[in-house]
């Protein structure tokens, strides 16, 4: 569109942009040069959710601010961006460590992120909420309660049916204490806190496990109406970085901790590659997917985990090609969907497989998208109508599109 603006009109337009922080939603990420452009397409590392009214909410980072935008037309257009943290802070915005958003049935909006406090892996777990439907946000609060200038990073946020709001994260307070005592400590620890009053307050922090990996996202799925199951990369033995699973209650109890993957990835390094997990609506078991480059397994894997049997089953290699990574799982109407990224030397391919038998077998892979530029990890968002891909790309901007179509809901391929 070519338009000529008179100076006054241009000035008014500038003011409009500067004050409302609104941009056309059609801007692609390649047009995001100006620092003043605040849009979902130009932001970094978005997360999304859909509320009970079908409104899409997206949070993302731009220039040290966390923003929230919403859309009432499934991502075609977005509202003005609302700034969550009034004062700039170094909010992490990468594939493994992104702001999170949850909207409850009363339209309370909960946002969390990790504030990087130095280049040395120190950070704070930050939380803010809106109780006026996303118009304004409360001053951000720090949820880790140790007051230490230490590592608290890679937070995950989850709300159960009961309304309990769980925050889990990777925490280095025990590592610091060990260093102070002159003792060795492998990796970091996993901690959590729970709010039973819709984010007004959080419980004291509880340690879930020592010796976790330091740099992988934590996956959360429900376990009954008020508990959660979490899956994270854990150091077993001296250097084996496979996965552990546990159930957490709102009362600081950790139950049924077990080993969820046996890949034998012996590595003294940061994989920066966290797992994904959902609970099966059919069996109540857990569907997991993750990356490993271990002695036993190399590539993207899927497996099912039952807390009764306390071991993984149906272990399936999703993609063993070099460059495959960052899987994400979801279920709709009894069909499992798994998306992940691969790189063929020229392009990143976003692939999908499905299972209609609770993970016992999987379809052939379909390539959903291909891009010859940079892209974020893919995520899947759900509502009553289906599943949606949430994927930020340099080439296409923020991609939000339906993965399921109505007639295929139980037909698998």
């Amino acid at each position, binding site marked *: 569109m070519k338009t000529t603006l008179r100076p006054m009109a241009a000035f008014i337009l500038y003011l409009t942009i500067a004050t409302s922080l609104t941009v056309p939603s059609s801007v692609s990420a390649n047009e995001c040069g100006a620092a003043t452009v605040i849009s979902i397409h130009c932001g970094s590392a978005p997360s999304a959710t859909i509320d009970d009214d079908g409104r899409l909410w997206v949070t993302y980072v731009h220039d040290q601010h966390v923003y929230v935008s919403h859309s009432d037309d499934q991502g075609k257009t977005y509202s003005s961006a609302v700034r969550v943290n009034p004062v700039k802070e170094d909010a992490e915005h*990468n594939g493994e460590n992104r702001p999170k958003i949850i909207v409850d049935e009363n339209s309370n909006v909960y946002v969390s992120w990790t504030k990087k*406090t*130095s*280049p*040395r*892996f*120190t950070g704070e777990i930050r939380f803010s909420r809106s109780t006026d439907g996303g118009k304004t946000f409360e001053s951000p609060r720090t949820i880790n309660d140790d007051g*230490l*200038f*230490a590592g608290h990073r890679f937070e995950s946020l989850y709300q159960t049916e009961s309304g309990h709001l769980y925050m889990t994260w990777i925490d280095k307070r025990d*590592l*610091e204490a060990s*260093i*102070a005592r002159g003792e060795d400590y492998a990796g970091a620890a996993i901690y959590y806190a729970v709010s039973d009053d819709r984010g007004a307050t959080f419980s004291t922090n509880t340690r879930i496990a020592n010796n976790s990996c*330091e*740099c992988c996202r934590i996956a959360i799925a429900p376990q009954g109406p008020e508990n959660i199951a979490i899956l994270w990369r854990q150091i077993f033995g001296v*250097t084996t970085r496979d996965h552990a699973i546990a159930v957490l209650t709102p009362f600081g109890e950790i139950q049924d901790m077990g080993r969820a993957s046996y890949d034998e990835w012996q*590595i*003294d*390094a*940061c*994989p*920066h*590659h966290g797992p994904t997990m959902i609970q099966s609506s059919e069996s109540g078991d857990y569907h997991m997917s993750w*990356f490993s*480059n271990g002695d036993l397994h190399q590539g993207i894997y899927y497996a099912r985990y039952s807390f009764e049997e306390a071991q993984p089953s149906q272990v399936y290699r999703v993609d063993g090609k*070099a*460059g495959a*990574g960052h899987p994400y799982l979801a279920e709709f109407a009894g069909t499992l969907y798994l998306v992940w*990224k691969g*790189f063929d*030397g*020229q392009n*990143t391919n976003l692939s999908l497989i499905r299972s209609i038998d609770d993970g016992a077998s999987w379809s052939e892979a379909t390539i959903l998208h291909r891009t*010859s*530029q*940079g892209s974020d990890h893919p995520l899947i968002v759900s509502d009553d109508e289906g599943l949606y891909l949430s994927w930020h790309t*340099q080439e296409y901007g923020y991609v939000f599109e339906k993965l399921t179509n109505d007639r295929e809901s139980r037909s698998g391929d």
Partner: protein
Amino acid sequence: MTKKTHRAIGAMPRLFAGVLLLCASSVVAADNFKAFTNESFEQIKASFAGQEFLLGLWSVDCPPCMVEMQLMAELIELNPDLPYVLVSTDSIEQRDYSAEYLEDVGLEDKESWMFADSFVERLRFSIDPNWYGELPRSYFFDSEHNTQSHSGIVSEELLSEWFSRPLKFR
């Protein structure tokens, strides 16, 4: 030349870290980072034609990398001519953090590159299609540029095995 102090990786006093951050943000590109693009890996290899060298990939977001770089800094203090090239997988747009760390550990004078393309998969591929991005990652090239790779903290044993020259260790 001033003697470098090698600080432990543990927590820093808050005030001191704050001062460091202020310094880092107010200094403009006081580093020698080169922009690592799709052609850079071949350029680096060409610049070491007929010579052995070690390429070390790291990130400020990788705690084990810090352990390895302290080890490498000590090694280079004892073996100043060791051909060692650093490549940070962090975006060169965030060079301040990386520069601060290199200076602190005493590796700021080494040849240093930073990823300069948001399509990081392609940059990784240009180095090694079989590298998944885990860090630290090391590549050793002998004088004929036969390559060996290692994921995780590189050990003294491995370095001794790789380099043809005798290495001094503390």
